[in-house]
């Protein structure tokens, strides 16, 4: 039905769609991914194994998926949004019972060779579903308490499931990503003020719950918060990660120690140097110049997404693009804050750079949707 809303005449079709892809975003994504390959090569001690090679393959696969998603009309994805959300939600519930235990958290389901992390997928399907929801909902009803409540349920159910896994980083991304879409969709200011006030109270409740049987966070999460607040008090224990990460970052200086010359990462002082903390290696080896360049690349990706969204008169496409851009932004902003000691260590990877399959595939699928919105926008 939605198909009818678009004037097909004004939408490119066939191979012409390729022209209407947002090429700058594709180039920027490739540039960021290449930076990642370089860093994975470096942290492996100058070797394509064990990290760089699989990462390249995944990126290739991800790009194919992205182009495929981009070719499919955006209205098809809008129609799939609710279904996708429900399926992801079911998968999230399934991992509660059948998921493997990895790093103290139940996060993935194994389908033969494919290891699926529903929480990663949820970052995308939640944004899609919310965008579709607000597209369907008349603007004037957006601030009606009942409809706000419905949106909150859509966000909070998966958030709590993810938090139970427990994966604080993803839960925060879902919460902030979903909240941003609600905000963009025009929900009344007052709600956000209330929520911010309430969350301050909530944070206090979380701290109060520590040590009681109903404590809301796992002990290691509390410790991470403690460590964030004062990493110096336990430099060889819980604060070790962040202290070493800061040393690596700071010792980079202006231009860094040179490719593969980072002593902190090469000598294993850095924790999870190929995943969450890969930014420290980059900063150590390429210095301020390298770190700032990466930040600029990320920013440009967000900027191009926002420009594409604002040019798009379609409400779903616009909200979706902005939502994905926001999720992407949260990814790298939280990761960088975390390794630079501005935020607690919550386990958010650096998008497209950190080693990891699920996150990359989901992100590139998300950018596929952005491309689809760009290609199929009424001109």
């Amino acid at each position, binding site marked *: 039905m939605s198909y009818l809303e678009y004037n097909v005449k004004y939408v490119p079709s066939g191979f012409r769609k390729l022209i209407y892809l947002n090429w700058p975003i594709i180039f920027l994504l490739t540039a960021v991914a290449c930076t990642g390959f370089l860093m994975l090569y470096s942290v492996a001690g100058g070797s394509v194994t064990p990290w760089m090679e699989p990462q390249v393959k995944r990126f290739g696969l991800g790009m194919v998926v992205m182009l495929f998603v981009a070719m499919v009309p955006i209205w098809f994805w809008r129609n799939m949004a609710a279904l996708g959300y429900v399926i992801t939600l079911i998968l999230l519930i399934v991992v509660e019972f059948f998921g493997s235990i990895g790093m103290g958290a139940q996060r993935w389901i194994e389908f033969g060779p494919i290891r699926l992390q529903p929480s990663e997928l949820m970052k995308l399907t939640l944004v899609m579903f919310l965008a579709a929801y607000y597209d369907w909902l008349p603007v004037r009803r957006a601030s009606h308490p009942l409809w706000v409540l419905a949106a909150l349920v859509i966000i909070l159910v998966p958030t709590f499931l993810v938090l139970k896994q427990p994966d604080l980083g993803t839960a925060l991304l879902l919460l902030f990503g979903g909240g941003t879409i609600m*905000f963009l969709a025009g929900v009344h200011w007052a709600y956000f003020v209330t929520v911010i006030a309430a969350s301050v109270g909530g944070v206090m409740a979380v701290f109060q719950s520590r040590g009681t049987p109903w404590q809301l966070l796992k002990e290691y999460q509390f410790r991470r918060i403690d460590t964030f607040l004062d990493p110096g008090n336990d430099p060889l224990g819980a604060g070790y990660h962040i202290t070493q990460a800061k040393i690596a970052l700071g010792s980079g200086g202006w231009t860094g120690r040179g490719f593969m010359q980072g002593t902190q990462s090469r000598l294993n*002082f850095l924790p999870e140097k190929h995943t969450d903390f890969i930014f420290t290696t980059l900063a150590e080896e390429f210095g301020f110049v390298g770190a700032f360049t990466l930040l600029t690349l990320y920013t440009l990706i967000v900027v191009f997404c926002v420009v594409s969204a*604002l040019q798009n008169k379609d409400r779903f496409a616009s909200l979706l693009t902005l939502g994905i851009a926001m999720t992407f932004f949260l990814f790298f902003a939280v990761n960088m804050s975390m390794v630079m000691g501005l935020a607690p260590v919550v386990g958010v990877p650096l998008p497209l750079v950190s080693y990891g399959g699920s996150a990359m595939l989901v992100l590139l699928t998300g950018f596929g949707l952005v491309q689809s919105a760009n290609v199929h926008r009424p001109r």
Partner: protein
Amino acid sequence: MKRAPKDSAESARGISRRALVVGLAQVGVLGALGLRMQQMQIDQADQFRLLADENRINIRLIPPARGLIFDRNGVPLAQNEQNYRIVIVREDAGDVAAVLQKLAQLMPLSPEVIDKAMIEIARRSPFVPVTIAERVSWDDIARVSINAPALPGVIAEVGLSRLYPMGSDLAHVVGYVGPVSDYDLSLLDDPDPLLQIPKFQIGKTGVENKLETTLRGSAGTKRIEVNALGRVMREIDRQEGLPGADVQLTIDSRLQAYVEARLEGESAGAVVIDLEHGDLRAVGSAPTFDPNLFVRGISLRDWTDLNENKYRPLAAKAVQGAYPPGSTFKMVTGLAALQAGVIDPEETVYCRGYTEVAGTRFHCWKGAGHGNINFHESLKQSCDCYYYEVGQRAGIDNIAAMARKLGIGVKHDLPLSAVHAGTAPDKAWKTETRGESWRIGDTVNAAIGQGYVLTSPLGLAVMVSRIATGRNVEPRLVRAIDAVEQPSGGGEPLDLNENLLRRVRASMDAVSNNTRGTAYGSRIALTEVRMAGKTGTSQVRRITAEERARGVTRNQDLPWERRDHALFVCFAPVDDPKFAVAVVVEHGGGGSTAAAPIARDIILQALYDGPPPLEAYPANVRARIAEDQQRFQERVAPGSVGSDRA
């Protein structure tokens, strides 16, 4: 649900407005990130760079080889022994328990040793070598090395550990080393980083302790790059340290061995000084102990035995014992009086067996008294009353000054543990230490080397050296450090009347060689090497009036610790003094019977640089001496192996 175009435009404007707000928030976050980057990577870069280098580079110390200690003839007294040990590296071994089982079949390993090793291995990082056995025999090492392919992770290593080939003979002089303890660190104001090495061996007593910095050498360093687990990635550079300096002592190990053998069975100290340079040829203390026990880690039982032994084997009696010198102090009192001119050597003093001073009766050892007696006779017969009199005439300050001039009551700077300065008391000393004023009775007591006067055998030996030579002989223990000769202790002539000294020497000659001398029984029979001496018997208790009335209690009837100390000082040959000897036998009884024979035997051994001819002994003792010599030769011989004369 078809939307009106107006609605759609409205929506787009709403989204744009809200997107602007979100965008502003994002710009804020990006700004914070950028600023943080700048702050950390530019403003604080130097600070973090330093931290990174500290993280990465470890400085490891290479312990230097400890300096060796030789005797005057080049016989090693302390050396570094190759110490083979078996270590295991967990990560190379794989199944540690199985490897240890195999190892136990090749060499003796008790289950306790294996258990201890397993615990240690579990505690350490997998790449840290853990010692399983130390001081492994060469045969075991060979067996382990041959079977190396079957014993992954097992390595035979060689290190250095201290060995004292002379064993107990020089325990009190050379001392011993042991692992540095927290207590040592708290005492030492020594920033040498070597001391931080776990179980680093430092000198604990004796020369090992006092010449620690000389013997230790300086640490080499190697800078290594390590990872976060402490695993060594590579060596960056290395700087070799300096081995410790070799120390040559003035001790003659053969004479020392003889002295220890001669003192065996007594609780005694003896010192032999070579008068030419003040060289300490032998510094004997008995009983003694084996310093090697301490190096290997002394067992609690051995330690308790040593510590609770009433003869105090751990004490270096020759230098740290403080005894009243008794009659051996009479040379000091006599010289003080003669030098002060308060009495002429030929002037006589009447001895009636006691002297009344300030209402107290001071007895002579000879109850019947010596009658009229001059200086020569008084020393020869050791008359106490004569010294009561001349001591009072000279005054305590003169006596104390003479004592110090002759080396009693002054600290001799020797690299030995707990060297006791002794006490040469005077008025100021008593006021200062006791808060009481000096009384005339104190002078009377001090005049015969009792009361507050204290000295070690070393002090006595120095005294007799100075009397024999008229020079300010200063004892010297270290002959050379790294082949650099140390200053001689021969000394300048003392500010003393040589004629008076000659009289004192003549009187000491008479003590040993005049038939009425107190040490005539322990004389040297050959005139050209005859010795001059002085006996001493110092009381450790007060003799009460009743006891004296009952007649003098014989020493043998008293419990050991209440018997008199026996002392003897001597030099020889009389005409051209070469050696001075002082012997103190704790609670040995009379100086003439307990100490003099020992001193004579020692000085003869020194004079002849080995067993003296039997003719040197009085005819009546030769048979017994011959037996003794036989016995001592057996005892001394093993220690003197390799004593090539340099």
